[in-house]
């Protein structure tokens, strides 16, 4: 999960010494492309071909269905809460970890990474164990009529957990690589701590942040396993888009299922496009300088 770092001005024309014979080059390109086509392009194509299987009208009809709309709304709400929280966390964590040295740093980084490799099934389960009726806080919550699991807060919590490391993991290596000389200089010149952060640090890691946010957002909108455990699957209320896809699929409504899935695929494509354009812009800027 490393960010596209500062080497935007990559060597565009490696000299003869640094490259392979044209035949080898094209062979490697071909192998890589075939592999990617098989693993990435084909699934993507399959989603869209099934979605438009019965024509555009059916496709739009599927998206206009009230339960679909409410699932889209829920997914947007979830992402809108999750992403800023994890962004704030990511930036603070990266600041503490990248700019300072302290004992137990390695352990802290590992713990931040943990949600990334915890099985989604477990990620959902832990919140049920705590907030569920049989869990630690369950009876108390029940008494006060507060719903966490099987309601929106539980879905948001599980999503925060799953996307927890994304921004932090993008930023830590980037901020480490940049060192702290620039910040120190700013401070010496009389800038306040926050000024230093916003004027010096932030511009330097802007693209890392954007990349982290994009990934965090995509994952937040697409998470299935963890959310499935805490959702309760109440139609029109606690179904997110990925859960709704599964439900439609299970109702033998394949076209609608893939139509809704294609929304997520669109989202994926748009995020990827934004990312590419952003990178390209920066590169241009660097070349003009």
């Amino acid at each position, binding site marked *: 999960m490393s960010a596209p770092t500062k080497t935007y001005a990559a060597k565009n024309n490696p000299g003869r010494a640094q490259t392979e014979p044209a035949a080898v080059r094209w062979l490697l390109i071909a192998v890589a492309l075939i592999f990617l086509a098989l693993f990435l392009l084909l699934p993507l194509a399959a989603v869209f071909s099934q979605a438009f299987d019965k024509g555009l009208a059916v496709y739009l009809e599927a998206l206009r269905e009230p339960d679909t709309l409410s699932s889209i709304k829920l997914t947007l709400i979830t992402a809108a809460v999750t992403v800023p929280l994890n962004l704030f966390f990511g930036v603070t964590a990266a600041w503490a970890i990248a700019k300072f040295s302290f004992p137990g740093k390695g352990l802290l980084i590992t713990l931040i990474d943990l949600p990334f490799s915890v099985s989604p099934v477990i990620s959902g389960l832990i919140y049920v164990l705590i907030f569920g009726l*049989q869990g630690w806080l369950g009876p108390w919550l029940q008494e006060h*009529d507060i719903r966490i*699991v*099987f309601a929106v807060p539980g879905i948001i919590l599980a999503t925060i957990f799953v996307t927890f490391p994304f921004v932090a993991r993008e930023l830590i290596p980037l901020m480490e690589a940049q060192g702290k000389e620039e910040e120190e200089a700013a401070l010496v010149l009389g800038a306040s701590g926050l000024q230093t952060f916003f004027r010096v640090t932030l511009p330097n890691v802007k693209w890392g942040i954007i990349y982290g946010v994009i990934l965090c957002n995509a994952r937040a909108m697409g998470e299935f396993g963890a959310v499935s455990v805490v959702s309760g699957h109440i139609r029109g209320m606690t179904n997110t888009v990925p859960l709704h896809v599964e439900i439609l699929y*299970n*109702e*033998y409504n*394949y076209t609608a299922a893939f139509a809704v899935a294609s929304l997520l695929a669109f989202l994926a494509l748009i995020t990827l496009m934004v990312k590419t354009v952003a990178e390209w812009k920066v590169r241009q800027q660097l070349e003009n300088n």
Partner: protein
Amino acid sequence: MKFKQIALPLAAIAMALSTATAALAANVTLLNVSYDPTRELYTDFNKSFAAYWKSKTGDTVTVKQSHGGSGKQARSVIDGLQADVVTLALAYDIDAIAEKGLIKTGWQKELPHNSSPYTSTIVFLVRKGNPKKIKNWDDLIKPGVSVITPNPKTSGGARWNYLAAWAFALHQPGGNDAKAKEFVAKLFKNVPVLDSGARGSTNTFVQRGLGDVLLAWENEAFLALNELGPDKFDVVTPSESILAEPPVTVIDKVADKHGTRRVAEEYLKYLYSDEGQKIAAKHYYRPINTKIPTKLAKLKLYTIDDKAFGGWQKAQKTHFADGGTFDQIYGSKK
């Protein structure tokens, strides 16, 4: 105290968030937590009940639906999913909820017919023209026949499948438990995929084209037939099968708290009315009211309370708990 300072606003927020409205209001919301194959049935039934309730009391009732594997749904209710009523695939799952004190014991006596307003059974869905000539359970263990069923450990429907096969073998001349186990083991040797739920299996059979025969709820088989193409599949009803009784009940704790007990009870009773029974029949369930016409074929049905099984608690322990006959079958199969 600090605690009170936090608790008060928290409670206020919670009340604002809370979606269940008080019973006195003219708008009532019920949550019906059900298993997978009942989606279409309850979509229809809820409309009919809402109209009935409106004409009777003037209140508007909205019934929210939640569907999933029967065991998973029961677990969600145990963990706090605010279901006013549950309509699950088997009594064992509702027993598990009762065990946690959310339902009064003896719930199954509250409504007629073991609290099962409709019944179903297990039949076969085969490819059009039945190329493998599958007529009865003993055809399923023939070599070269590929059988699709979900995993009995995760699917209520699959447990009925398993027990139906078991009952068939047991009632063959000279049948006993050992022979039945051998029969079921042979059957599962012919199973290439175990999906976690009934709908997953249907999708595997129908969409992926896997298997020669799908063991399914009768209502699922007919639904798949109608939804996915009568020109592609046939339903085969075996000579004998098991009587599946999907029970319904009010979740006492939740309904009392929401003040929805009356409407929840009426909701379930309406399932027993002529109108409710007709809707069940329309969706290929077997209505318990014999006056309601049904197109479903007659067959010999064993029940879970037969001596061979001794009720759900015992059947679950013997067959599906860890180390039960199902595990033994897969443990010995290398």
